[in-house]
């Protein structure tokens, strides 16, 4: 069944690429495919390994606790503000390998709403935050959302969410099978007058594009799919790129600097191989797809006489405006068995509270509810539950009784852009390549906790309406890092207040593109990856066009 597509792919060597792509995750995978299928020679760098489907395992301990296979194994640092000494943590929740974060992600893939692109003009400024409009709107991205859904393989039901933005085509695949958490969400939503709908998922529900349909094995979020049913870039666009014979992946190679010439154009990269030997490679165009933390880090590691504060950083905004998504959740316990270990993570979403309408809710920024079966055994057995001992007969009985009878109502929310939330180079700590690790400086805007309070109550309300016999909720806490890494090279029309233009092209360096979550201007409510991929499809088209016209490269 498992074809391990990547195995039979040609490996070629390219000495003089047209384009260098750095990072092979959500955005990088799409970029490699779009450029190479249009005839450009591409070398893609990936600091992690080129693992194949057969390397991924259904093993909670290995994937959820141990670093290396799934969890990025290098630390970063964190501080709440610039005056505090950074502490070593592992808070950048990412995966480092060919396919990047799409190998282990959950696959939830909805489009941003029209309002996400225009929050400043629709709802006005927010004190203490820097909320701006995007230089693109939903309609600029709509064709590329469609392209992403069809090329990657997203399943869903296009008519089911009354709050969805309009679309020209339905999803290419029918929605994922409803789990008990989804059925209970349906029940609750009907009682409360909310609208639950099938979660759009980058997981194929029927055979598609020479891959087999999902079999609901349940090893999904946090795992590499052993069936190749999850539409990671590793099994979708990357094999297509390699099959052109015009794309080479240099895995286990970390780019440590992007070089520029006297005119201020990018000339190529300096990179380290597995043995820390240094090499150089030149290209006409450089595309950085290292994610919202590692893209600004690479630019900051590439100062030159022309760009003393880091490459593409004449605005001073590289690394600033770091956004995550903010989460709150409630866990509900039920009488009958849900068996949430089966199936994909999440089969229903509720977007009734999506719009960031401060007039209506008394706060800025909306969110979504994602009812799901979050509770794998190792984690579940050790959950901190009020009044429940952590050990002994009572704990044991509780685990036995509840493991299959619980679900989580996850609320995922908007995070507001603040100039003081940043990615910078840590002054002391180095990674295994000998390079400075990223330092995260992050403090929640007060609004975040207000939204959090509102959504925690909605999450509890949902579980209560679904008939939960007990509900346990999380408290507000400042995130030190996240899986959604956004905003650090924001997009805009004005080179003084943004890093890239509306095609993800650096304002300062015409043949340098930054394509990933770093270009987000607002955070959306959750699940940025489909938008990251839509941006990548769009930027790739622009790059090809500009190279053809001789404007760049």
């Amino acid at each position: 069944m498992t074809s391990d597509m990547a195995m039979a792919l040609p490996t070629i060597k390219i000495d003089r690429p047209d384009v260098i792509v750095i990072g092979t995750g959500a955005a990088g995978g799409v970029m490699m495919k779009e450029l190479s299928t249009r005839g450009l020679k591409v070398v893609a760098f990936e600091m992690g390994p080129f693992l194949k489907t057969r390397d991924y395992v259904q093993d909670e301990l290995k994937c959820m606790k141990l670093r290396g296979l799934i969890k990025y194994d290098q630390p970063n640092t964190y501080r709440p503000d610039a005056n505090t000494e950074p502490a070593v943590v592992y808070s950048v929740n990412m995966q480092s390998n060919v396919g990047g974060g799409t190998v282990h992600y959950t696959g939830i893939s909805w489009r941003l709403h029209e309002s996400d692109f225009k929050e400043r003009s629709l709802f006005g400024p927010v004190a203490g935050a820097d909320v701006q409009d995007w230089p693109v709107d939903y309609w600029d991205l709509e064709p590329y959302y469609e392209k992403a859904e069809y090329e990657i393989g997203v399943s869903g039901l296009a008519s089911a969410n009354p709050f969805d933005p309009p679309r020209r085509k339905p999803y290419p695949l029918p929605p994922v099978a409803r789990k008990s958490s989804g059925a209970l969400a349906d029940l609750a939503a009907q009682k409360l007058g909310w609208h639950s709908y099938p979660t759009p998922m980058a997981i194929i529900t029927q055979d598609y594009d020479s891959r087999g349909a999902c079999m609901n094995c349940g090893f999904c979020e946090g795992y590499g799919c052993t069936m190749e049913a999850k539409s990671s870039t590793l099994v979708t666009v990357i094999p297509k790129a390699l099959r052109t014979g015009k794309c080479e992946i240099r895995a286990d190679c970390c780019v440590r600097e992007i070089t520029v010439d006297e005119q201020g154009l990018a000339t190529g990269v300096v990179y380290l191989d597995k043995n820390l030997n240094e090499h150089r490679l030149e290209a006409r165009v450089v595309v950085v797809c290292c994610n919202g933390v590692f893209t600004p880090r690479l630019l900051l590691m590439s100062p030159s006489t022309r760009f003393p504060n880091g490459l593409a950083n004449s605005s001073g905004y590289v690394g600033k405006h770091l956004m995550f998504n903010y989460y709150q959740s409630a866990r509900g316990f039920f009488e009958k068995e849900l068996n949430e270990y089966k199936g994909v993570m999440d089969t229903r979403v509720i977007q009734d509270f999506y719009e960031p309408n401060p007039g209506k809710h008394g706060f800025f920024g909306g969110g979504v509810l994602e009812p799901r079966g979050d509770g794998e055994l190792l984690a579940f057995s050790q959950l901190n539950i009020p009044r429940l001992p952590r050990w002994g007969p009572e704990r044991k009985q509780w685990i036995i009784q509840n493991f299959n009878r619980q679900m989580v109502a996850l609320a995922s929310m908007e995070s507001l852009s603040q100039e003081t939330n940043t990615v910078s180079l840590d002054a002391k700590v180095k990674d295994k390549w000998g390079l400075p690790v990223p330092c995260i400086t992050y403090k929640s805007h007060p609004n975040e906790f207000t939204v959090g309070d509102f959504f925690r109550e909605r999450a509890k309300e949902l579980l209560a309406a679904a008939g939960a016999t007990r509900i346990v909720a999380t408290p507000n806490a400042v995130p030190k890092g996240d899986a959604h890494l956004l905003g650090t090279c924001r997009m805009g029309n004005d080179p003084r207040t943004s890093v890239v233009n509306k095609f993800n092209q650096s304002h300062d360096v015409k043949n340098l593109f930054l394509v990933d979550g770093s270009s987000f201007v607002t955070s959306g409510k959750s699940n940025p990856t489909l938008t990251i991929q839509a941006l990548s499809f769009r930027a790739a088209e622009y790059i090809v066009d500009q190279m053809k016209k001789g404007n760049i490269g």
Partner: protein
Amino acid sequence: MDDRRLSRRAFLSRTGQVTGGVISLGVLGTAGKALTRQASKPSREFVSFTEQQGLTIEAMAERIMPADDQSPGATDAHVIDYIDRSLTTHNAEDRPNYLTGIDLMDKASETAYGKKFIDLTVDQQVELMTAIDKREPPPGWTDTALPSQTFLRLVIEHTMEGLFADPQYGGNHNEIGWKMVNFPGPKAFGYDPPFGAYDANLPEIEYPPFVPYKGPGKQEQPSKKRK
């Protein structure tokens, strides 16, 4: 001899040097009347512990997830084998804390009862573990670098791993942990719906049919809600 034992033997010979070092650190005492020792596991070949230390952790693990007449417990699941082995692999950095913690457990036990931990009755062991599960350590627990609660939490974490992680790591013997909670373990070929009681019985919502947006683009954007 099952595969698990064989591979453990192979493992032992590979890590011979490390093992020797550990054994010389501890006191090789007689096992005493270990309360939880099972007839099915007569020979103990710990790689991270002396026999005394290993039996102490095994007893703690059994108090953490005890067998009862309904279901087996930590000892039956070979949790100690998991912990012992993991301290030479992925939990290696915790090994010094185990050696210190066991020592302090015994000191606290001797202070309170005049006996080592493994020689206490089950009730006394529970009593002592309840005492160390506090921010204030009990008398005899003198190391402030390793708070008693931290040590207990460590053993709890590893006991759960030994019970519920994949059997390849040495615990969860015969998938006892998985069977206990009605989890079938990884199933490469997955499951067909219905998955649980609620998706089987609650009706699906009927959604309206899809109407594609055919507008010319920016001029005629339809309103957000189509209802």
